[in-house]
């Protein structure tokens, strides 16, 4: 196993970076879509229920099926992989954005508008900081699940750590399977850990538990 690492560390590094690229890019696109959508639909109970159940149905489609379903549209490679990952993320991210904003105590909103705060001030200084912990929670869960699902993208030649896994399976070569597993798990663990620390910060701030420089 160690000999495999020593011999092929450069290739493994490339696959790891490729994996990171897939995850980061699809997370970025997902966020750019999900946060505005979540904000828009959070005001309407009816709309948010409808859209969330739609994404819920999509989320329940197995990843392999969704990859093959989108192949005709985007072809083999990274494009399809990113499209699939973005679609899956919508459910978690939109749901958490909606919940984040809806969870803010209505009296805070009423008091804010009632005392004459502008919509812009309300959003940036009041609503966003209070919704942030739940939104960050969504980002964390979405990132971890994206790291996992992205391994399957190797099947459609999107590269990434899945290549190690699937090659290892095909060749029945244990070191490859193990390294693929270890690296992707480690990546997921680290991502979770880092994002969790941001989330904890945001929770403390939203609850008024930190003495940060907020003035």
């Amino acid at each position, binding site marked *: 196993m160690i000999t495999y690492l020593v011999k092929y560390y450069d290739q493994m590094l490339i696959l790891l970076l490729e994996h990171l690229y897939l995850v980061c890019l699809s997370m970025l696109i997902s966020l750019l879509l999900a946060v505005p959508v979540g904000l828009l639909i959070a005001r309407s109970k009816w709309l948010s229920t409808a859209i969330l159940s739609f994404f819920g149905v999509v989320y329940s489609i197995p990843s392999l099926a969704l990859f093959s379903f989108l192949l005709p549209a985007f072809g083999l490679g990274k494009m399809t992989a990113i499209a699939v990952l973005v679609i899956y993320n919508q459910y978690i991210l939109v749901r958490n954005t909606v919940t984040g904003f809806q969870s803010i105590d209505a009296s*805070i909103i009423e008091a804010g508008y009632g005392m*004459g705060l502008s919509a812009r*001030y309300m959003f940036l200084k009041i609503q966003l900081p209070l919704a942030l912990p739940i939104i960050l929670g969504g980002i964390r869960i979405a990132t971890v699940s994206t790291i996992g699902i992205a391994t399957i993208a190797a099947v459609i030649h999107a590269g990434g750590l899945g290549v190690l896994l699937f090659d290892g399976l095909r060749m029945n070569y244990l070191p490859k399977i193990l390294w693929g597993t270890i690296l992707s798990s480690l990546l997921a663990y680290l991502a979770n850990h880092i994002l969790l620390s941001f989330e904890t910060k945001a929770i403390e701030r939203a609850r*008024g538990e930190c003495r940060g420089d907020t003035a």
Partner: protein
Amino acid sequence: MARTAIEFRNVSKQYANTSQYAVAGVNMRISEGSFITILGTSGSGKTTLLKMVNRIYEATSGEILYFGEHIKNLKLEEYRRKIGYVIQQVGLFPHMTVEENIGAIPQILRWDTDTIANRVNALLELVCLSPRDFKKRYPRQLSGGQQQRVGLARAMAADPDIMLMDEPFGAIDAITRQNLQEELIRIQRKLNKTILFVTHDVSEAFKLGDKVVIMHEGTIQQFDTPYGIISKPANEYVARLIATQDIVQRLKVLKAQSVMLPVDAQVSDRAFRVGTEESLHNILTYFLEHDQNHVLVEDGGRGVVGKITWEQLKVSTRQGKILSA
């Protein structure tokens, strides 16, 4: 004569998907510097009436005037900043310190840092919280009563002319509530703000209000001084509402000046003296505890203006009771 701070002209409000009016054809003038309580049961339209003033709810028809100007013609945010707003759930911003909560509007108004800091300190002292101890705290580190004090301070931050208060002491324990009520009266006397205060508590309404608005099914049943309402209830509903209060409660509401017999200023009597605002309840207690059968009523600088005898107190009390039974 005091200016009219708020005027309602035939104001009605109907919520979407309901056939009934929450508020129906209300006409009312509120003079500057008065403390008005709006009393009613839930569903009476009292909160709707209040929240139409700062346009949390928009009136379906009719007009509301703020010092003679139609509120719909005023810029919403600027208009709201001239009105202090206090609600039962307080609604402090949990991620901001007490200081930041109170300073939010002054900051938007671009006051300089020192002015804001001084204002925050002064307001905290006004609501009986030590600035040194409380300024840097977060809302969750405060008790319910302290939170509402901060809410009150925040509402007064930009020195509004008018304060709207929606059952502000509704969720606070009885003892703290009593302190807050007394402090609110003191603050109002000191700063002469126009206050509209919604409550469902009869004794609170009568204790705080110079005048009381009694709402039922979206209309005003009576708009009068506490004494006026107790001595002459306008209709059956008002009579029943105040009859739920026992006689001692009612005596707490009645003030010395409302039953005193006028006297000449040159009284050299050594009898006990009370203020014009003294409650009949306290005067009764005095009669019961001392071997006296009259007290003199004094009006600050003007000296003795009236007297109340034991007989007079009995007669007024009985009249009040008969009228509202």
